[in-house]
C-alpha cells in the first residue's frame, strides 16, 4: 500500500461534534504549526447550531506557502461517529485515519488503502478524569498530543503555547499539558511514530501574524476613527462589532473620566442598525454597521436614501451562502450584485473587496475617509472564510502622520466668510461632490433639509424633471470621480504576457495564486491575472479586459455575479469572459480553478503560450 509521504506539506481534517470545545484544541494544533515557522491555513467548517451537530476543522500545512484550500485530506482525525463513514470515504488514498478505538470500529467502515490509527480517547479520559465536562474537553487535547508524536512536532512549542493561551487562568496550564502528554505518550508506546507525514521547524513565517478578517475590520474601524457602531447579530458578521467594542474598551477610553470615545448599539434589527449609522453619519460622526446577506437585503431601502441624499456611512457585509437564510455558516461571494446595485431606482454603491486580514484592516480604515470624501455608502465586501478564520497575514501597520479625510464639510467660519449662497447639492468644484454642513454649525447659514425625495441644488423639494435629471446626472459624474479614489486592482504582471487573463477578488486570492503556479508548472501556461479590489471598476480593469482575448472570472457564487458586473459596467462581450465558479459553501480550491480553466481551454483547443525561459 502506498502511504502519503511528505514533510510540512499536507492537509489534516478534524471531524468533531460542535459545542465540545474542539475548535480551540484544533486551533491550538494550527497555532503550533505556525509557531514552528511553517505556513498554515485553518478553516473552521461549522454548522448553524450550538451543540451536537458535525463540525470540521481543516488545516493545511504548506512549507511552500500555499494558503488556499487544496482539496482532499491526508490525515483525518475522526472523533464524531455521526460523520465517520463520510470522513473515511473522503480521505485521500494512502492517508491516515485517526479514530477513537475505545469501542471497535464499525465493521462496515473499511478501506484497505489507508492507515488506521486507533487511540482509546474515551477510555483514557474515563481513567484520568471524573468530571464529564473535563472528559469531553480533554479528549480533544489528547488527540492534539497524539498528533504531536505522530507528526514529530516540537513539544516545546506546546509548552509555551499552552502557557500563552491560558494566561490569567494558570490553573488550566498543567491539566492541558498533562492531556497533551497523555496523547503523546500513548502514541510513543503503542503506535508507529513519526508517520511518513511529518513536520519540522522552518523559517517561512517571518513577521506574519494569525488574524481573523472580522477582528481586522473591527480594529480598522477603531484606527479609521469610527465612533458609532450599530448592528444586529448575524453570522458570520457578529465578531466585527464585537472586535470593535473589545478594542474600543482597550484603546478608546478617556483617561480622565473613564468615558468611552465610541458608542455601540445593538439594534432591534438591521433596518435600525443602518438607520443609526446613517443618522450618525449625517450628523458628522464616522459610523458603521456590519451584517451579512439577509441584513443587506433589509438595509437596501436605507442604502438608497444614503446614496440619494449623499450621506457617508460604512457597511461591512461578511458574505455567506444565500439566497434567503441559505447556508448561514458557509462561505460565498454572492452579495456582489445586490450590494453593487442596492436599493430601488437607479443606484450604484461603492464596494471595497479585501482579500486578507491586513487588507481588511486597511480597507476598513480607508472606508471612512472614502465615505466622507464621496458622501455615499461604502460597502466592505468580506466573506465568512476571510472573516471568521484565522489567516496568516502580514503584520498591521499604521502611519502615525496619517490624517483623516473628513471630506467637504463647511465649518462655522467658512460659512461666515461665504459670500455666495450655500447649495447643498451644488457642484462647486467640478468633481460632482457637493459641500455639506453638520447640523448646529452656524446660527443662520448652511442649514438644509435632507430628504429622500427629489430636490434642487439648494436642497429644496422639487418635482421638476429637469432638476431631478441634473441631480441624477451629477451623481453619475460623482461615480466617475469615485473611480480614481477607490483602491486600484492588483496586477500580477507589469506588461501583458498572455492573451488569456484571470480576474478574481476577495478571499479566493490564495487559491488563485496557487492555480496560476500550477498552470505555469504543469501546463506551461503563463496567464495574466488581476485582482479586483473595488467597484466602480477603474480604467485598469477596463484595460485588462480589452487587452486579453479571454478573461476567466473566478468567483464563489452560482451566477457569476462579478462577471455580470463586468459585462454590464464595462460593456464587455460575455463570450470573452469564461467563468470558474464554486458555490457549495466551501472556499474554492486551486484544483477547482485549474480544472475549470483546463476544461475551457481544452474545449477551445488553445495552444498554450510557453513559459518564458
Amino acid at each position, binding site marked *: 500500500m502506498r502511504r502519503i509521504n511528505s514533510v510540512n506539506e499536507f492537509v489534516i481534517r478534524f471531524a468533531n461534534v460542535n459545542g465540545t470545545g474542539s475548535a480551540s484544541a484544533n486551533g491550538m494544533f494550527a497555532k503550533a504549526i505556525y509557531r514552528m515557522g511553517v505556513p498554515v491555513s485553518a478553516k473552521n467548517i461549522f454548522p448553524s447550531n450550538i451543540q451536537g451537530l458535525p463540525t470540521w476543522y481543516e488545516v493545511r500545512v504548506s512549507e511552500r506557502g500555499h494558503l488556499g484550500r487544496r482539496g482532499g485530506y491526508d490525515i483525518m482525525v475522526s472523533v464524531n461517529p455521526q460523520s465517520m463513514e463520510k470522513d473515511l470515504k473522503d480521505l485521500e488514498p494512502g492517508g491516515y485515519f485517526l479514530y477513537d478505538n475505545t469501542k471497535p470500529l464499525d465493521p462496515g467502515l473499511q478501506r484497505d488503502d489507508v492507515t488506521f490509527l486507533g487511540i482509546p480517547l474515551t477510555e483514557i479520559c474515563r481513567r484520568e478524569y471524573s468530571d464529564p465536562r473535563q472528559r469531553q474537553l480533554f479528549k480533544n487535547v489528547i488527540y492534539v498530543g497524539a498528533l504531536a508524536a505522530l507528526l514529530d512536532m516540537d513539544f516545546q512549542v506546546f509548552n509555551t503555547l499552552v502557557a500563552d493561551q491560558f494566561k490569567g487562568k494558570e490553573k488550566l496550564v498543567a491539566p492541558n499539558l498533562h492531556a497533551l502528554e497523555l496523547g503523546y505518550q500513548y502514541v510513543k508506546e503503542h503506535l508507529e511514530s513519526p508517520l511518513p507525514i511529518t513536520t519540522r521547524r522552518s523559517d517561512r513565517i517571518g513577521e506574519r501574524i494569525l488574524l481573523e478578517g472580522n477582528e481586522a475590520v473591527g480594529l480598522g474601524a477603531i484606527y479609521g476613527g469610527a465612533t458609532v457602531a450599530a448592528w444586529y447579530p448575524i453570522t458570520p458578521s457578529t465578531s466585527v462589532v464585537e472586535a470593535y467594542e473589545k478594542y474600543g474598551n482597550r484603546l478608546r477610553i478617556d483617561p480622565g473620566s473613564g468615558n468611552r470615545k465610541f458608542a455601540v448599539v445593538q439594534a432591534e434589527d438591521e433596518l435600525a442598525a443602518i438607520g443609526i449609522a446613517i443618522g*450618525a453619519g449625517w450628523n458628522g460622526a464616522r459610523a458603521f454597521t456590519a451584517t451579512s446577506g439577509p441584513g443587506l437585503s433589509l438595509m437596501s431601502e436605507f442604502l438608497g436614501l444614503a446614496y440619494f441624499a449623499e450621506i457617508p456611512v460604512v457597511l461591512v457585509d461578511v458574505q455567506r451562502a444565500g439566497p434567503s437564510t441559505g447556508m448561514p455558516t458557509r462561505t460565498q461571494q454572492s452579495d456582489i450584485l445586490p450590494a453593487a446595485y442596492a436599493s430601488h431606482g437607479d443606484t450604484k454603491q461603492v464596494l471595497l473587496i479585501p482579500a486578507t486580514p491586513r487588507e481588511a484592516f486597511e480597507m476598513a480604515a480607508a472606508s471612512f475617509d472614502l465615505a466622507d470624501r464621496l458622501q455615499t455608502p461604502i460597502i466592505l465586501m468580506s466573506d465568512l472564510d476571510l472573516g471568521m478564520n484565522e489567516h496568516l497575514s502580514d503584520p498591521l501597520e499604521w502611519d502615525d502622520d496619517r490624517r*483623516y479625510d473628513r471630506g467637504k464639510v463647511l465649518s462655522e467660519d467658512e460659512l461666515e466668510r461665504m459670500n455666495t449662497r450655500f447649495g447643498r447639492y451644488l457642484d462647486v468644484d467640478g468633481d460632482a461632490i457637493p459641500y455639506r454642513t453638520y447640523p448646529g454649525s452656524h446660527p443662520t447659514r448652511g442649514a438644509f433639509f435632507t430628504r429622500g*425625495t427629489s430636490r434642487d441644488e439648494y436642497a429644496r423639494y422639487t418635482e421638476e424633471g429637469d432638476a431631478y435629471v441634473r441631480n441624477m446626472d451629477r451623481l453619475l459624474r460623482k461615480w466617475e470621480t469615485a473611480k480614481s479614489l477607490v483602491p486600484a486592482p492588483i496586477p500580477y504582471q507589469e506588461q501583458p504576457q498572455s492573451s488569456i487573463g484571470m480576474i478574481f477578488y476577495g478571499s479566493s486570492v490564495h487559491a488563485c495564486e496557487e492555480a496560476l503556479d500550477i498552470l505555469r508548472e504543469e501546463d506551461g501556461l503563463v496567464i495574466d491575472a488581476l485582482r479586483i479590489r473595488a467597484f466602480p471598476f477603474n480604467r485598469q480593469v477596463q484595460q485588462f479586459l480589452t487587452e486579453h482575448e479571454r478573461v476567466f472570472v473566478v468567483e464563489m457564487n452560482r451566477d457569476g455575479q462579478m462577471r455580470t458586473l463586468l459585462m454590464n459596467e464595462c460593456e464587455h462581450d460575455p463570450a470573452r469572459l469564461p467563468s470558474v465558479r464554486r458555490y457549495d459553501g466551501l472556499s474554492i480550491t486551486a484544483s477547482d480553478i485549474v480544472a475549470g480553466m483546463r476544461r475551457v481551454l481544452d474545449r477551445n483547443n488553445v495552444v498554450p503560450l510557453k513559459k518564458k525561459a
Partner: protein
Amino acid sequence: MSYVRPSFRHPQLPANELGLTRRDYEGSLSTLCSGCGHDSISGAIIQACFELSIPPHKVAKLSGIGCSSKTPTYFLGKAHGFNSVHGRMPSVATGANLANRDLIYLGMSGDGDSASIGLGQFGHVVRRNLNMIYIVANNGCYGLTKGQDSATADVGSVSKAGKVNPFEPIDLCTLALHQGATFVARSFSGDKDQLVPLLKAAIAHKGFAFIDVISPCVTFNNTPQSTKGYEFVRDHIEATGKIDFVPMKSEITAKYEPDFTHEVTLHDGSVIHLYKGDKELDVLDRRSALTAIENHKEAGRFLTGLLYMEPENNDLHDTLGTTRKPLRDLNEAELCPNNHALQVINDSLR
C-alpha cells in the same frame, strides 16, 4: 389657500432673550391642507422654541414619511432637518444623537409612521431612553395615500369613505409607558394653551419625551362618526389639568394653591406646575398614569395633558458611558491609537 407668505411683519414684534422674533423660528410655507391639525402643532413648536429662547440652529428636526413627517419643513427653517425613511426616524435620531449629544433632537412622526410600519423602532427608541422629543401627529388615518385607516383608529370610527374600523387601536402613550418612557403626554392640536407648555417641558426634560398629539385630518377623517375629528375630540376631551412651565432661570411669581397643584422639578432645574384636573393621577407614578388612561378610555373620553414623568433618569449616553465631548468632535489624536499600539497587538497575534 395661500402659496406666498406675506413679507410684512409688525415692526415691533416682540423679541426673546436672544433678540430673535417669532419669525426667526418659522419655516417654509406649509403645503398641508388648510385647517390641518399638523399646522397647529408646527405653530406650537415655533411658539415653545421662541419663548424658551432656543437658538434655532441648535435643534435637529427628524421625521419619517407621511403628512406629519413633512411638517419639519414648516418650522425652524434655520435648523437642519432630515426627512428619512418611513417608520425609521427613531433609528436615524438615535444615530444623530449619538454623534452629537449637544443638540436638541425633535422627532416628528405620525400614527402610520410610528404605530404601523415603525412600531418596532418606536418601542426600541423608548426603551433606550434616547434624549429627544418625539411627537406623533395622530389623526387615525393615512393622509398622503388618501384616507386609509391607521393603527390608532378606534374601533367603530368611520372614515370619509364610510368604512367602519373593526380593529383594536394601538395606544402609543400606553405603549410608551410600558416601554419605560420617562415623559409621556397627550394633547390636542386644537389646544395650544396646553400643547405649548407641554412642549416646553418636553424640551427641558432629559431623556425620551413623548407627546401624542391628536391632530385631525380635515380632508379624510373629520367626519361626525370619526373619533379623531375636531367635533368628536372637542366633545370628549378631558385634561389632566392646566400646566405651567417655568424655565430654570425664571422667578416663580404666580401663587399656587398647594392642594390643587403638583410641582415637578426637571433635570435642568426648570419647574412644571400642574393644576390638577384629575386628582387621581400622580404624574410621578407610571401605574397611576396607565390606570388613568384606561379609566378614561372606558368612559369614552380622551385624557390629555402630562401623564407621566421621571425627571431623573439615565439617557442612552449615560447608559453607554460616552464622553461629554460630542463624538463627532473628537479628532485623530483622541480617536486613533498609534502604530506602537498596533505593534503590541501584532505581537499578541503571533
